[in-house]
């Protein structure tokens, strides 16, 4: 009897330890705030632990191709995960869109940005910060908006580029640039702009900023990695993601 109880207990403990795994996740910098919240909820709900590394998607791409031990990539775009899959570094059929980024024209000054972005036609600003279109999807979207509005002649000489959307935010928040195209997730909490004034750019003016997740080769047999990918598609996670100003 005692022996059986002992066996039952040890096997139960064994199950618990194998179940509660760890997963190393590479997370696009613009998604760091929601992901921290999701990781906490994920750990509470499943017992798995997600170890997060934040950075630029291009950098993660280079690191993954050179053997970085990440199991899951949450990219800032949909191209990088597709490329990794093509090149054999990610598991086919595991890609999905976990968030859609939204663009906002933002100034730290209150009542400066109007509700249609008409300020872009004026001379009331000296510098407009955007993310480098070569490096960041938010930069590509910003250029699309500028072109569709037809404001290139006025705007192009005033553009300064941040190497990421995070740096673009710094340029505007230190007021070295009076205006900037940033991610809505950076300046809003629960659907409200936290400071200054902003124009939430209609999604019809730019190609949707799809951010895809993918399971990487290193995470192929990792139960925690699979659980995290599933968790990201749960209602609990989606509520958090929308709360930070992403569309889904």
């Amino acid at each position, binding site marked *: 009897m005692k022996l059986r109880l002992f066996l039952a207990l040890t096997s139960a403990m064994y199950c618990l330890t194998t179940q509660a795994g760890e997963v190393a996740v590479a997370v696009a910098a613009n998604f760091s705030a929601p992901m921290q919240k999701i990781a906490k909820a994920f750990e509470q709900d499943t017992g798995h632990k997600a170890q997060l590394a934040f950075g630029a998607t291009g950098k993660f791409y280079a690191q993954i191709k050179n053997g970085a031990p990440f199991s899951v990539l949450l990219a800032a775009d949909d191209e990088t995960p597709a490329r990794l899959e093509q090149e054999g570094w990610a598991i086919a059929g595991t890609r999905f869109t976990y968030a859609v980024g939204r663009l906002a024209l933002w100034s730290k000054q209150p009542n400066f940005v109007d509700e249609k972005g008409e300020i872009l036609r004026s001379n009331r600003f000296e*510098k407009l910060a955007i993310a480098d279109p070569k490096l960041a999807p938010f930069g590509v979207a910003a250029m699309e908006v500028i072109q569709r509005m037809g404001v290139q002649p006025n705007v192009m000489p005033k553009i300064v580029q941040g*190497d990421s959307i995070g740096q673009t935010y710094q340029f505007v928040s230190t007021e070295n640039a009076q205006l900037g195209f940033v991610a809505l997730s950076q300046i809003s909490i629960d659907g409200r702009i936290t400071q200054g004034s902003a124009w939430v750019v209609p999604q019809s003016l730019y190609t949707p900023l799809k951010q895809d997740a993918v399971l990487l080769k290193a995470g192929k047999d990792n139960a925690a990695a699979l659980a995290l990918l599933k968790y990201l598609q749960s209602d609990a996670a989606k509520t958090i993601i929308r709360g930070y100003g992403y569309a889904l």
Partner: protein
Amino acid sequence: MHLSAEDFQAIVLTLQLASVTTVLLLLLATPVAWWLAHTRSAWRSPVASLVALPLVLPPTVLGFYLLVALGPHGPIGEFTQWAGWGTLAFSFWGLVLGSVVYSLPFAVQPLVNAFEAMGPRPMEVAATLRANTWDAFFTVAVPLAKPGFVMAAMLSFAHTVGEFGVVLMIGGNIPDQTRVVSTQIYGHVEAMEYAQAHGLAGVMLVFSFVVLLGLSWFNRRPNRHAHRHQKAGA
């Protein structure tokens, strides 16, 4: 190896930035180093530590605080606006300012060493020969400390060419104004244009090697020369 027009633009701008920064740094560092080498003031250690501080902060962090300081509500920004220059972030002169701060220890330290190694004797002898202080400084101290000047110039120049974090933070990546070689290479790497990155990095490494090699040869010759002078004088 294919370098684009933009790559060449970045190379030219980098050389301009490094040259201007080096000249300004030598002008600024010489009096500071002279004072540090000769003073017995209680301020010596605090000032020496202050000069060395840019070594401590990670460049991007230093760049971030520069960005804050250069902004319209920062101390430097308020001054430059008052002076009618606007704000300096995202401009060539903003980068010059950042580079001067960033490379200051590399200009000051070799000069302090050179002035200290010289000792007080040569200046005293010059004074007994009725040379005034300025005269003695330029005809005695500067030639004797020449290796220190060359070393300071070399390190300032090289350090500015290789500067990245500060430029990234306060530059804004504007072609012909703030897009230097290091940020251009970084851009290529991040955009996964590895071939172009290799090309530009290769050019930068070879060029820097040649410059450093040349300066170090140049540095060895006058060094012996100065040494002979010293012996003859003694």
